[in-house]
């Protein structure tokens, strides 16, 4: 076994036993990146020198010497943070995001910044202004997105784990496409301070890892109340129970809800079969299956595509060419400078969403769109609340199909948007959700199982996911690169 193939848990143990050193581990990963990233194209920036300098900063932390990749929308002090956009191509933050700071405080090492859809808007990582990241299982196919770089880097062993961010499925969907574990924590569990905002009421940072246990280890490190984020939950909610202690227990009697609205037309038959088998496997492990209803599921995608762009239209107003980031040349006056800078600095999908959101918030349309969407969002939250009266977790496919071909959906935004149909609801409702490997199609493409939990009950989600994972070997398979 190569050092770069280690899980975080295995690496921690090897380091503890002195069977490898942080330096050796780091160099193994840097060589791995050197060897295959030209194929996968997961990294926007590789921070080899910074990583070497970081080694030994903290030798007794929970993550000492563990090299990790970070999605390029989390601010890293002194390291370029681009959001895969021309707008921020040369932006070097003067401060560190809370989530990443917590990793460094625990001794982890920054390997580099990972590619994504521009400003996290997309489901394929094709909307990166720089390059498309390729799915390690089939380079012609997309990684999913927007955290495609993070999922691909973990799947291809270029980092032991990574952080992604999830606004409508941006951690879970690429995790499913790349056969890794992606966790979107409860809204408020992890600080958003330093995460470049896409849609503030939906964004949440979470781990992308090779195993469920690694997910628990990283969540331990990054969760907790942050006084710099008003929307982060109080410490008694956001802070740990040690998530690694919740896993490894059996799931006898665990009530698993199966929402009938998620097994619908448009769900690929093969993906459906694989997911139904996975859910049966949960039953075989002692869980009790309960059919539940989430009646407002149909509205989740339209509601999301009003709320998320509305917030984005305001969040992205700061990229105006005045203070930092891209400024177009040759503007005739202030208005011209704004228009040119934003027209040239943003990609098509970002501009589409800014326009959608600007329209939805405009006077005369606000009530019909934004306000109405917020009301429906409340109903979607209530759906989950009601369902969780009867079940402990909800199981569903993560995505309606396996990874699609590059270019397949770029010309049809609605098709692209529907690829998040099963993940968006958890963002709207704020619940935690995980995607974990649950099989492969006949073409050898990974399929993900999604488990959604109650607010702040990641423990149960991780426990169920871990029980399933340990009874299968999907997570041990590696793409041939």
């Amino acid at each position, binding site marked *: 076994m190569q050092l770069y193939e280690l899980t975080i848990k295995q690496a921690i143990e090897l380091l503890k036993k002195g069977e490898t050193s942080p330096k050796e581990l780091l160099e193994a990963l840097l060589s791995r990146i050197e060897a295959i990233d030209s194929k996968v194209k997961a990294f926007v920036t590789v921070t080899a020198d910074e990583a070497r300098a970081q080694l030994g900063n903290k030798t007794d932390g929970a993550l000492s010497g563990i090299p990790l990749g970070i999605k390029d929308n989390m601010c890293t002090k002194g390291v370029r943070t681009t959001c895969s956009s021309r707008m921020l191509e040369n932006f070097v*933050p003067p401060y560190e995001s809370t989530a990443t700071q917590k990793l460094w405080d625990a001794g982890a090492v920054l390997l580099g910044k990972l590619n994504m859809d521009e400003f996290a808007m997309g489901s394929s990582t094709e909307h990166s202004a720089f390059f498309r990241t390729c799915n390690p299982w089939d380079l012609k196919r997309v990684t999913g997105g927007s955290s495609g770089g993070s999922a691909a880097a973990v799947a291809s062993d270029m980092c032991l784990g990574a952080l992604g961010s999830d606004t409508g499925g941006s951690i879970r969907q690429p995790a499913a496409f790349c056969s890794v574990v992606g966790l979107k924590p409860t809204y408020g569990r992890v600080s958003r301070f330093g995460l470049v905002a896409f849609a503030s009421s939906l964004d949440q940072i979470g781990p992308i890892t090779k195993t469920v246990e690694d997910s628990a280890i990283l969540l331990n490190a990054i969760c907790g109340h942050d006084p710099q984020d*008003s929307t982060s939950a109080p410490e008694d909610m956001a802070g740990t129970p040690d998530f690694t202690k919740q896993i490894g227990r059996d799931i006898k009697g665990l009530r698993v809800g199966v929402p009938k609205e998620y097994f619908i037309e448009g769900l690929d038959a093969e993906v459906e079969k694989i997911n139904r088998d996975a859910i049966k496997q949960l039953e075989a492990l002692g869980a009790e299956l309960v059919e539940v209803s989430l009646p407002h599921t149909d509205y989740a995608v339209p509601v999301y595509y009003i709320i998320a762009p509305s917030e984005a239209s305001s969040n992205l107003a700061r990229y105006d060419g005045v*203070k930092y980031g891209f400024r177009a040349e040759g503007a005739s006056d202030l208005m011209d400078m704004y228009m040119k800078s934003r027209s040239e600095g943003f990609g098509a999908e970002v501009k589409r969403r800014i326009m959608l959101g600007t329209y939805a918030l405009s006077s005369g349309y606000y009530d019909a769109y934004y306000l109405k969407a917020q009301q429906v969002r409340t109903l979607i939250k209530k759906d989950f609340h009601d369902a969780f009266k009867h079940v402990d977790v909800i199981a569903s496919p993560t995505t309606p199909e396996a990874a699609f071909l590059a270019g397949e959906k770029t010309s049809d935004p609605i098709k692209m948007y529907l690829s998040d149909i099963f993940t968006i609801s958890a963002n709207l409702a704020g619940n935690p959700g995980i995607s974990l490997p649950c099989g492969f199609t006949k073409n050898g493409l990974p399929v993900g199982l999604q488990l959604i939990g109650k607010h702040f009950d990641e423990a149960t989600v991780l426990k169920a996911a871990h029980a399933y994972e340990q009874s299968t070997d999907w997570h041990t398979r590696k793409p041939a690169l």
Partner: protein
Amino acid sequence: MSAQAKPQDKANQKYETVIGLEVHAQMRTETKIFCGCRVEFGAAPNTLTCPVSTGMPGVLPVLHRKALEFSIRTGLAMDCKIAPFSRFARKNYFYPDLPKGYQISQYELPICEHGHIDIEVEGATKRIGITRIHMEDDAGKNIHDPSGVSLVDLNRTGTPLMEIVSEPDMRTPEEAGAYMRKIRTIVRYLGVSDGNMEQGSLRCDANISIRPVGQVEFGTKVELKNINSFRFVERAIAYEIKRQTSVIERGGEIVQETRLYDTDRNITVSMRAKEEAHDYRYFPDPDLVPMVVDPKWIEEIRAGLPELPDVKRKRYLNDLEISEDAAAFISEERATAEWFEAAVDKGGEPKSVANWMMGELTRRLNDDKLSFANCPVIPIKLVELINDIDSGKINARQGKTVFNSLYDRCKSMIEESPVKPSPADGSLAFIGKVEPVTSRATSSVIREELGIKQSTDTGTIEKAVQEVLDKNPDEVERFRGGDQKLMGFFVGQVMKATRGEVDAKTVNEMIKKKLG
């Protein structure tokens, strides 16, 4: 209400003016509303900034509790209802001095609503409704260099503001002026803002319309911006009334628009029409959780409110029986009122204290650009001086000499000491600070040093009186002939001859006796 309006000219009797004001008050917090940057006036450009106040990618606002407290304080002082549930909204527009591309303000659920304040115009009291008070963050400043370069200073960005919105209850420029001054007095009393219009910590936009007297519906309103001194509030509104009246008189129609007041030319000029108005696309700020204010906290804040100027003024009139002018003067500034009350507490006779404060003391303070918040003479020293006069140790004229010397002495003692007035001092804090420093300067010490005393020796007085009478036989003759006004002349001559060291009353009596 229109009956109160001044009939300025013929046109104004046909039309009634309706005025509503939006006042922005910078709150006097040490740090900004959503980050830890210091708030300071006049620092070098862009030195009071951080990633949050410069709108870096990924930063988040966190509300400064003090700003909420100050807003509630102000709301309570203006008899507002404090919202149990309130939230921030984003007001979206592009401008270089607005680094986030939106202002964090409040829209549907402001912190305070439905209040009022009372103003006094021409001896009558009028109640002006307060529609709402909401919190927001201030923008930076654009600086246009003469060379054509535009620069941005973000020091002011994020300074906490309160926007106090009135009902359209004012009818004359004078009422608007009185309203502004009252707002200033109240925010200064509460310590929530320094209320300085010239430095921009108090700013005002006015909504003005006119309508035929008797008409119930409002006329088309014009918003007036850029009114940056108390003087200009009345002037700008007066001009706008004249302009609107003349438009209507000529058969024209008022256009709904925003106009700027041009202070140099004393006119208003169109800035943008209604059609060009921004669509601010307000929506609840998802970065800030709604504020749920604990009623217990509101009651704590209410309990901590100072006695407000209207209450003070009435108490001074009724209980201390000082004049209406004096009561208004003393109650206008909290520091002045505290100084006055401290003097009365030390046994000063209220009317005498008020007279000294309004007269000699204010004259000296104005000359030195000081105020009662940093007055070099502490109240007890004035009380001792007044007592010296009342007990006849010195006369009123000598009192003035002693006072000025006392003032000079205290001032230089403070200047030579390490004590420095700080903007955070109230008058009471300042009094406490300078008391030990100026302890050696008192009325009695100065009287002794200058040798100022009032002669009580009747022999001396009689001698001086006799000399004056002997030198002025003609006047004595005329006085005896019934010209009583000459008494003042004789007294004056005696005072001059004795260098003012005798009691005028005794002199008066002695002259009467001699010539009677």
